[in-house]
């Protein structure tokens, strides 16, 4: 029961309190780039969730089972990026085989998940926070993906309505999106301090 509570707390904290996009500034590029339409945003969120769960768990395993035992921590970053690139390749093959229409609509953004900082960032944060058991690492990775999906879907919803608003000409596009994101983080700051 105790472990269950810890895991639940870890999940809630990574989804809303330490949301990677809104408090750690990770994954801003797709957050600004793909948040134009809500269905695209949701699909992107799911793809990222899958990749981040897979690579977060795998990098934790590799880090603890291989690198730390053999004193190879120096090669940590190189190994992490290889695992992520491999996971993205796997997702790309899977989507192309089973959901060709979704594959076409993603275009270039699918391979770009490799350079999504949210994923490498999460692997590094798991390492930094000193997570020492596999279930917690897996829950944190999954939660980070859900948090990303949540943030990008809220943003897409706002931006669909923003298209109808009369924004000053020089602020159109990226600037107003950034300002909206700022206001959104202000709302999420209200959750700070809820746990620990």
């Amino acid at each position, binding site marked *: 029961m105790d472990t269950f509570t810890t895991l639940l707390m870890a999940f809630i904290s990574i989804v809303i309190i330490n949301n990677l996009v*809104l*408090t*750690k*500034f*990770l*994954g*801003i*590029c797709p957050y*600004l780039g793909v948040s134009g339409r809500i269905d695209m945003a949701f699909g992107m969120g799911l793809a990222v969730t899958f990749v981040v769960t897979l690579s977060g768990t795998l990098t934790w395993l590799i880090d603890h089972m291989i690198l730390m035992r053999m004193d190879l921590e*120096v*090669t*940590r*970053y*190189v190994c992490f*990026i*290889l695992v992520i*690139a491999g996971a993205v390749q796997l997702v790309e093959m899977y989507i192309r085989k089973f959901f060709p229409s979704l594959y076409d609509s993603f275009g270039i953004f699918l*391979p770009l998940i*490799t*350079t*999504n*900082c949210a994923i*490498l*960032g999460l692997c*590094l*944060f798991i390492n*930094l926070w000193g997570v020492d058991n596999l279930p917690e690492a897996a829950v944190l990775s999954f939660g980070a993906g859900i948090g990303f999906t949540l943030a990008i879907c809220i943003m897409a919803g706002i931006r669909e309505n923003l298209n109808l608003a009369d924004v*000053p*000409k*020089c*602020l159109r596009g*990226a*600037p*107003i*999106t*950034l*300002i909206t*994101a*700022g*206001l959104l*983080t*202000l709302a999420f*700051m209200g959750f700070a301090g809820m746990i620990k």
Partner: protein
Amino acid sequence: MSNTQYAIRNTIVGGLWKENPVFRLLLGMCPTLAVTAAVKPALTMGLCVVFVLVCSNIVVSLMRNLLKPHLRILMFTLTIATFVTIADLLLKAFQPEMSAKLGPYIPLIIVNCIIICRAESCASKNGLVISIVDGLAMGAGFTVALCVLAAIREILATGAVMEINVMPQSFIPWAAMSMPVGAFITLGLVLGLINKISTKK
């Protein structure tokens, strides 16, 4: 002016203003937002990016004729990851406090789009000299952009820049500017301002 000199001058102007990675191309947003709460970490981050950018541009430019197209991106990423590891270890050895403060954002340079973008669009097509100049110019543009944002945020958040007071005594610090909100809104407004200036011309 000879052809090479002209190309070099173009690259420098491009990096600093016309194709400024942060303000014009919107690349490398994560460090831009994350480390600009104060000028010192922003400057450190900028210098690390310059180092990695120049080194990876040199290596990519030297091996550009050996690369197979489909393995290109993977090789770029591995090169960048190697240099980022070097930069991270150097920082840990000589600036331990700053290294602890920047935390995971230094290794995150690996996935900074600026570096892979320059490797792809410049270093893999041009010779050594142009690649080095491009790395320096783009890195300088990035550093300047980071420092401008950091200066605005630090002045408004604490009333001081690099521990030198610039605001009058009666100034009330805006704590929000050093939080995520400040990062997003400052960058949004600065981008708006730059759009305004460049459309006027």
